[in-house]
């Protein structure tokens, strides 16, 4: 108890980290499920169906499978670096999420805001610092496997990530100029208010070019289709993680999805107003939107349980239905509804981005390597630079005119 009273920040932070880690791990697991389901439906298939109702227990089964598979380490590999690489990839990807504000800072317990693990003054810069060393995971995995395909995959991937990181960073500077701060809460607070009383003052409106550059570079940074050359299976088997098996492979897999979540969160914060609601405050009914949404989902699940499911799947889906109905009912209580407004809008926006990611994967083919490089350096970089210069000029113009 004495320790808690002496170090309140440390203890509360550790608790928040533990809770966030649990939520993120679950989100990662179900993101893989969502991806398989959505891509399957885009391609007129069913996707995972047999483990649990609608394949809902598939992530659990996959996790157990990864844990119990044989962990093969190539004898010619560099042992230390080979083990270090997946740890590096996953831990950096998870660290980045600790900087994300999931809700307004004024919801507090013990004088610490609940929805933010770490509210740094240089939040954005620190996030870029973490993502910039994320390249090591991929590059070292490729090198330490001591095999041809991973080396080529690692090289390609490092080149790609270095190239697109430049555009990624520069495309964000336009937003920084508008916000005038590196702190995430400051950036979000700067987006409060409305144009013509109904268009939210999000940075995406003045910075639409910056946003398009950002989302393109972000997809390339996370090695996703159409920029997934590092693991192009038709040419490189599986790229940098060819030699990895069992849980080390799972760590790369989780790191990729964690990175997807991070860049989606960042896009939400920088361009779409973070935890701000898209509707004006006077529209009181939006307080009940999360609860009503959950209740509607629960009602759909209830219908599905009764009409479609048989046997054990019916019991499983009944549990999901009850959770959704109960959660929805709790979210309708006014004090609860007020607290979860911020996280609700944040999550909704991030989920929209994640859906966009998966949608792209189901739709687009892969770039060729030279196309990828010339696109990054000859189109994306000049456009984001031009966006930065024009934004700076527009901001400085009134100052110049009035001395």
């Amino acid at each position, binding site marked *: 108890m004495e320790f808690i009273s002496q170090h309140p920040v440390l203890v509360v932070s550790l608790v928040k980290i533990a809770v966030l880690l649990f939520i993120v791990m679950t989100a990662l697991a179900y993101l893989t499920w969502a991806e398989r389901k959505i891509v399957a439906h885009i391609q007129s298939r069913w996707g995972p169906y047999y483990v649990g109702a609608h394949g809902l227990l598939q992530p659990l089964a996959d996790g157990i499978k990864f844990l119990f598979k044989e962990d093969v380490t190539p004898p010619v590999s560099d042992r230390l670096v080979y083990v270090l690489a997946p740890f590096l990839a996953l831990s950096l990807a998870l660290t980045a999420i600790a900087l994300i504000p999931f809700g307004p800072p004024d919801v507090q317990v013990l004088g610490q805001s609940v929805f933010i693990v770490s509210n740094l003054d*240089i939040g954005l810069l620190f996030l870029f610092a973490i993502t910039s060393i994320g390249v090591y995971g991929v*590059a070292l995995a490729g090198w330490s496997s001591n095999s041809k395909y991973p080396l080529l995959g690692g090289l390609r991937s*490092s080149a790609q990530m270095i190239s697109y990181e430049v555009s990624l960073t520069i495309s964000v500077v336009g937003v920084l100029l508008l916000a005038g701060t590196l702190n995430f809460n400051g950036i979000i607070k700067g987006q409060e208010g409305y144009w013509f009383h109904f268009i939210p003052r999000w940075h995406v409106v003045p910075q639409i070019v910056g946003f398009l550059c950002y989302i393109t570079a972000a997809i390339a940074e996370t090695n996703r289709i159409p920029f997934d050359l590092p693991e192009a299976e038709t040419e490189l088997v599986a790229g940098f993680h060819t030699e990895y098996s069992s849980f080390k492979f799972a760590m790369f897999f989780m790191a990729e999805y964690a990175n997807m979540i991070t860049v989606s969160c960042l896009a939400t914060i920088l361009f779409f107003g973070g935890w701000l609601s898209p509707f004006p405050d006077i529209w009181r009914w939006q307080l009940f939107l999360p609860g009503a949404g959950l209740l509607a989902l629960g009602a759909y699940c209830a219908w599905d349980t009764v009409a479609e499911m048989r046997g054990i799947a019916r019991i499983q889906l009944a549990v999901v239905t009850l959770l959704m109905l109960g959660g929805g009912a709790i979210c309708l209580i006014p004090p609860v509804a007020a607290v979860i407004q911020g996280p609700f809008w944040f999550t909704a926006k991030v989920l929209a981005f994640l859906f966009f990611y998966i949608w792209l994967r189901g739709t687009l083919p892969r770039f060729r390597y030279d196309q990828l490089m010339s696109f990054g350096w000859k189109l994306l970089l000049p456009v984001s630079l031009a966006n930065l210069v024009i934004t700076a000029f527009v901001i400085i113009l009134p100052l110049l005119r009035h001395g």
Partner: protein
Amino acid sequence: MNIPFILFFVCALLAVAGAVMLILAREPIHSALALVLVMMSLAVLYLLLGAEFIAAVQIIVYAGAIMVLFVFVIMLLNAGVEERTDFSKIAKYAGLPLAFFLLLWIGHWLAHAPAGAVIANGGSAPTVAFSTVELSKQLFRPYLFPFEATSILILIAILGAWVLARKEE
């Protein structure tokens, strides 16, 4: 024993260990990784001194850009294990005592310098507010000319690299 104090010694030891590993490692990638470790520990030390902007830039520029390029080039050239030659006689009989003496001298000087006093008193509590806003005000007002001159120098270096690397037509 407060936490910044412990953190200082952990990071200082890591930095020194990384620097030693950088020299002793025979695999070029291991050397590069050791250097990354040094950069990261230095970043934490900057953070402990209250210079958070410098710390972030240290990671982004050194660990995230320059060292990534090092690792990339080592991978691209597929550089093998280094060959070791014997320790030279001059290094053994003149270099080692000189290095030891230099270390003592730096230690003595640091203990009496203002920065050393801060570290000796627990390595925390920066006396100057060193915020990013303050830094940028300094950078773009009194130090504007050196800042712009450096950026032009870097631009010239980029152009030079481009001239050297382009194909003959």
